[in-house]
């Protein structure tokens, strides 16, 4: 067949899917949050360690299950978040996620792509008392 692989599945995405970075748990996490994408059954659970001032992210770990886009996105985000300020995390939107992934995401799959970002944001907001949900779901995504 003529096409050499898919545009949406560039090497970087596949690499992060097959060899997820920061996969696992951090026992001393400042906060932990979980989310799902009910349409696909993707789940992501994320542990975040904040610095002593609680202004910046030191470390992130995640575990999850689901499609390549959702899991690669979590892996890439886990690298990007280390060192980022909480304020910058809260500013992130879907365009930032698509930029990070570096591929065109079809409209049907955007929820897979943004799941990890939503989990991180909701986790932070819950921790700082700005939000009150048990689980994040991309179905509530009104962007």
């Amino acid at each position, binding site marked *: *067949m003529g096409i050499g*692989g*898919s*545009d949406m*599945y560039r090497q970087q995405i596949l690499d992060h899917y097959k060899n997820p970075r920061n996969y696992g748990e951090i026992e001393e996490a400042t906060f932990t949050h979980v989310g799902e994408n009910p349409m*696909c059954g993707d789940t992501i659970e994320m542990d975040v360690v904040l610095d002593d001032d609680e202004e910046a992210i030191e470390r992130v770990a995640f575990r999850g299950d*689901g499609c*390549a*886009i959702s899991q690669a996105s979590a892996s890439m985000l886990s690298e990007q978040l280390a060192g980022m300020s909480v304020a910058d995390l809260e500013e992130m939107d879907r365009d930032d996620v698509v930029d990070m992934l570096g591929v065109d995401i079809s409209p049907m*799959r955007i929820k897979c792509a943004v799941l990890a970002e939503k989990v991180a944001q909701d986790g932070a907001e819950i921790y700082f008392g700005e939000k009150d949900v048990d689980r994040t779901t991309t179905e509530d995504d009104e962007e």
Partner: protein
Amino acid sequence: MGLSESEPLDTSAIRDDFPILEREFRGEQLVYLDNAATSQTPDQVVDNIAHYYRNTNANVHRGLHHLSQEASIAYEEAHDRVAEFIGAEGREEVVFTKNTTESMNTVAYAWGLAELGPGDEIVLTEMEHHAALVTWQQIAKKTGAEVKYIRVDDEGYLDMDHARELITDDTEMVSVVHVSNTLGTINPVTEIGEIAHDNDALYFVDGAQSVPHMPVDVQDIDADFFAFSGHKMCGPTGIGVLYGKEHLLEEMQPYLYGGMMIEKVTYEESTWHELPWKFEAGTPPISEGIALAEACDYLDDIGMERVRRHGEELAEYAYDRLSEFEDINILGPGGDDRSALVSFNLDGVHAHDASEILNEYAVAVRAGDHCTQPLHDKLGVSSSTRASFYIYNTKAEVDKLIDALDEARQLFA
């Protein structure tokens, strides 16, 4: 009927009726294997719709002018044609709805809400489509009735001993999918109907995946209600059918109220029009209904027995080819005992990723839970990829599916 029932389909002649199949995406010709979701529409049906709007378009039952009379007659006769197609007694038993889902809701609301209460039981199967499952679940919540599910065994068949256990004097409704849109299982609907009727329960058969693919006779099945959708059987979207035994529809109150469905109206009271119009409130899907009758003609010209054999042969071929690979897990029964679809998972590749890669090769399949989420949960998978076949599909297209899957496998290896 042109050819004898024993001759196979002439897929290349049939493909000429479906120009959409010529479409190419980035140089790859479309391989349309999402027929269980929606089938393609032959020129004959498209032309029928265009002809209606160019020549006949008017509202029905109302006007005395020529167009309205022609439209009314064509629309009413479409009910007769559909009745013949499924072996109903006549148009009184054929209500046009929007789709299978609306047909299900019509009975759930018109009969279920009025008749069910605490202590009553509704028996479904674990392989029900959400159209039935969610609808009866919600009716149960509103009425205090209880829903029970006939078990699906490890091979994807209904556990008939369990069915006999579950269906009792307390059962008021048994609602069963004729052909599973996820497993491809063809359920023993006649046998289940006997159990339902032995226990004085009503019996609803969801025929969304059977009517397009096999000869169906609602009286042989002895279904009290039967539902299907036009868009899965060469017809347009926006038209579905509710079959109901005449005496039952007669006893039921309407589900939707308004114009067309009334006989006499005063400020205080209304009485209902005769069947089936009592259940068709407001301006109905006129051109869609007429086009559905055309779709019945189209399928009957091919011969439903041949349609069945073609779909089952393709499903068996796909099953056998997919079974060659140890990393592919197929849901549901063996290849020689399923209707025209195969759902599967490729190890290590999420169904959405698989279908996205297949799409790169213009192979159109469905990925997800196919509106059978509890069944997927039971099977321990979040989703699956489904290839579903129809009269225009070929073994060469199944081979393209297998090749494209291999690309996905290698990409993710």
